[in-house]
């Protein structure tokens, strides 16, 4: 690891002015990806601006039928939050399945969403539930947020402050883990919302995406057997040692079925 300066601002304003000053700096929002990259000398920021001192950024609030999760809320706090468990149980389960216990007590929803790792779980929930990403500047719909491999709609100097999830009729998330890394080789989030079914797939491609053909079939009939096979073309998917594109395409169907099974509580 290269040497760096560490900052721990206590207000969002201080954080933003530090971000503006340190062009080679990085935001530390849990550090479960960034610190690993720094240890391997793949990332060498001059400054780390740790958001964990900003109290307003952590916490879970219920407003009407939506749940707003502060950007610095740890996965373990989402996993164990009574409101989340009651209102969007699939989200609590998803959070409880990220990484391991240590990761879940350090990693944050804002950090995960901003990183847009192609194999991360949270983007599937954000896109699958049609959440809204709240930043210091604006509100961004999930459908407009994830742009590609480690790429989002966030602009320079823009920080995620919270993610707002609408409650849905029912939802499920199943991931098939990469045997080595335990990241999602394929993860499918299925949600039955008032506006139809949303299906988000993570792990399979360079960025989380919606499986529209499966959504259509499930909107007609929300049942595991309604999930159509072979709707995702393999040539759009990732291939690596643990999963060819063909295997991933197949797993999307299988995981979608299992996510629906979970959602309907069979």
């Amino acid at each position: 690891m290269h040497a760096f300066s560490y900052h721990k601002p206590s207000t969002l304003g201080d954080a933003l002015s530090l971000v503006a000053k340190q062009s080679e700096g990085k935001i530390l929002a849990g550090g479960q990806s960034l610190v690993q990259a720094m240890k391997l000398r793949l990332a060498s920021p001059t400054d780390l601006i740790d958001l964990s001192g900003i109290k307003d950024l952590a916490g879970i609030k219920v407003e009407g039928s939506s749940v707003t999760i502060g950007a610095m809320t740890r996965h373990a706090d989402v996993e164990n939050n009574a409101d989340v468990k009651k209102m969007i149980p699939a989200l609590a389960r998803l959070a409880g399945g990220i990484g391991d216990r240590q990761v879940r007590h350090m990693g944050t929803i804002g950090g995960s969403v901003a990183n847009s790792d192609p194999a991360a779980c949270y983007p599937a929930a954000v896109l699958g539930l049609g959440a809204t990403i709240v930043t210091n500047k604006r509100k961004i719909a999930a459908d407009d947020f994830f742009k590609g491999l480690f790429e989002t709609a966030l602009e320079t100097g823009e920080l995620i402050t919270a993610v707002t999830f609408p409650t849905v009729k029912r939802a499920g998330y199943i991931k098939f883990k990469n045997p080595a890394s335990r990241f999602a080789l394929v993860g499918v989030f299925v949600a039955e919302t008032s506006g139809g079914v949303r299906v988000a797939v993570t792990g399979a491609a360079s960025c989380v995406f919606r499986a529209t053909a499966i959504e259509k079939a499930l909107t007609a009939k929300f049942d595991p057997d309604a999930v159509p096979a072979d709707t995702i073309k393999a040539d759009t998917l990732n291939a690596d040692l643990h999963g060819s594109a063909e295997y991933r395409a197949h797993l999307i169907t299988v995981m979608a079925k299992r996510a629906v099974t979970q959602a309907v509580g069979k």
Partner: protein
Amino acid sequence: MNAPLIGARIERKEDYRFLTGAGQYTDDVTLPGQTHAVFVRSPHAHATLKSIDKSKALKAPGVLAVFTGEDLKVGGLPCGWLITDVNGQPMKEPVHPSLAQGKVRHVGDQVAVVIAETLDQAQDAAGLVEVDYGVLPSVTSTDKARAKGAPQLHEIAPDNTCYVWAIGDKAACDAAFSKAAHVTKLDLVNNRLIPNAIEPRAANGMYSRADDSYTLYVASQNPHVERLLMTAFVLGLPEHKVRVVAPDVGGGFGSKIYLYAEDVVVTWASKQINRPVKWTCERSESFVSDAHGRDHVTTVELAMDKDGKFLGMRVKTTANVGAYLSTFASCVPTILYATLLAGQYTTPVIHCEVTAVFTNTVPVDAYRGAGRPEATYVVERVVEQAAREMKLDPAEIRRRNFIKTFPYQTPVALMYDTGDYEATLSAAIKMADVAGFPARRKASEAKGKLRGLGYAAYIEACGIAPSNIAGALGARAGLFEAGEVRMHPTGSCTVFTGSHSHGQGHETTFAQVVADRLGLPIESVDIVHGDTSKILFGMGTYGSRSIAVGGTAIYKALDKIIAKGKKIAAHLMEAAETDIEYDRGVFKVAGTDKQKTIGEVSFAAYVPHNYPLDKLEPGLNENAFYDPTNFTFPAGSYVCEVEIDPDTGVTKIEKFTAVDDFGNIINPMIVEGQVHGGLTQGIGQALLEGCKYDPESGQLITGSYMDYTMPRADDVPNYQVDTRVTACTHNPLGVKGCGEAGAIGAPAALMNAITDALQVYGINDLPMPASPQTVWKTIQNAKQKKAA
């Protein structure tokens, strides 16, 4: 007198320090004036070194020295075992330099070393060493190494061939095949593994100008062997000027047996800069620098009569030794492999030919089991397949062929002293509830799952080895062990052993043996190992040899302690020596109530006021060297039951039953721990682990835990383990060794279970590791073939 300690579940004496963070590993050793080394390694699989410019690195802050192969002109790292090929020629031994000499031959090959005041400074400067590589085409795959036009690694080894070696009577074997009613044939790959000890390798070399001596702290399984090889073959130093200390070592599995380049470099460099030099391997660095394991490609044929009685076995194996010959690389796919191909069976003739090839990969050497897992995999896979083809129950075909009378001379050199293979097999069948399997299979099928059951009846040759036999087979060292028992005046005891403990629990097991025989509380016995300045000599720990060879050496030293104690006791009690009876710490005059304890005798030996000084030296300290007369032959039967999800290809191990015969057992708890660990490594090989190189670039694809699948707790079931005992006939403790068994037997049992489950698709083989993708793809291919 204490309750007997041999056979007791004594909690491990060493665990307090390990569990409370008080262990002292090589990286914990920081010497006055400590400096830090970082190695510059080749990013290419095969390249010439056109030039190395170290000027920028030398100017970097804190840098003390940068050395390359130009600076370090010493002997190559030696190979400790000479294999003679089928034409009577010695194997090809290309120079294995500590720092590359003009060429690099695998990703990770060490090119230069940067030494600085701090580790960060050394890391920064390592990035400033400018190496101009002339990239060459590479070959990494075992079966392509000898292909026409394959890139050549070493001038002295045409066709990348180290040796072609054979064992067994080929003509007799061919004759047996000509009479066979049926021949079963399998093509098998034993996948390459990366060891992954929890403590990465580390070395800290220190030179003392005062007496021109060196001390090397190193994460090693055998400090004396390390010293011998480094001084005699590489650095040309007198042995008495080098002390090697292997303090607490966090696992080895074979990978810390060898003399590595880094150990040589830090020792040598400590004199060049007159400061101690420490190197601790990074985890990602260990993937490309620790010796790998396995990597065989094999064709096996088994000839049978109409009743499934084995008539002969033919085996042809290509073994990948990597870019250079590591310390014991040459004997693993030969002496430790082909001699085990009889397994537990009476197969009368066996012929095996082994071709060892060089490739642009990390050197391959012994890894937990070393040759014996490969042999068991070949034998037990082909036997299970033979049962299928002969429509025999897999247990029944084994029973028909079991060796039942001992000693038994196999057709591949070994002489098994004892065993009871039926006992372990029938116990395993009962424990695994094989009778209930059909019902469990039905239940799985109802859920859309496939269930399979597989066996493996393994044998291993442990307690390595009788030195004269090893020498005749090419070993360049003896394979005895040394032990020393030092009674202290006030009755406690320190024991010095040449065996090395790096997780095995010797500090407890050996102490149990000593405390039991001397009638001492176990707290009064300490085991010291891992330091050439304290211990007489040692050949170290590998091949499940510690209790059988190292334990026996201690036992022999105890014999001498007791013999001398009898003389002292006789004097103290004014009796004839022949009238002294000894039992666990108490010397008695036969037929009387007169007695002296070992503590009293020891006190008399060191405070010899009333002592036969005219006939006997004072003191009570004895040592012994022990060279075994035969290998030991642990054996057992494993039964594995799996459930496969055909939709995803995921294999779940539902049950794993292991019944082993390790001879007498000193500490059943430690033995169970060894079996659990071995099984997990074996399951790791079959289901999860697999080293992969990119065939084009020669890059290591599985270079981190993101891609290399280490087994985790939730990958394995709760094991059912038990033992049966036939005592070893040629060592006084009747022990055989247990460290490697699980890793030897598990892969075949698991793959036999998986192929059993996949019989519905007519699948008889699939490669290890049977990852979800591999299982799924194999099923898809079989379905397509069926449809076509």
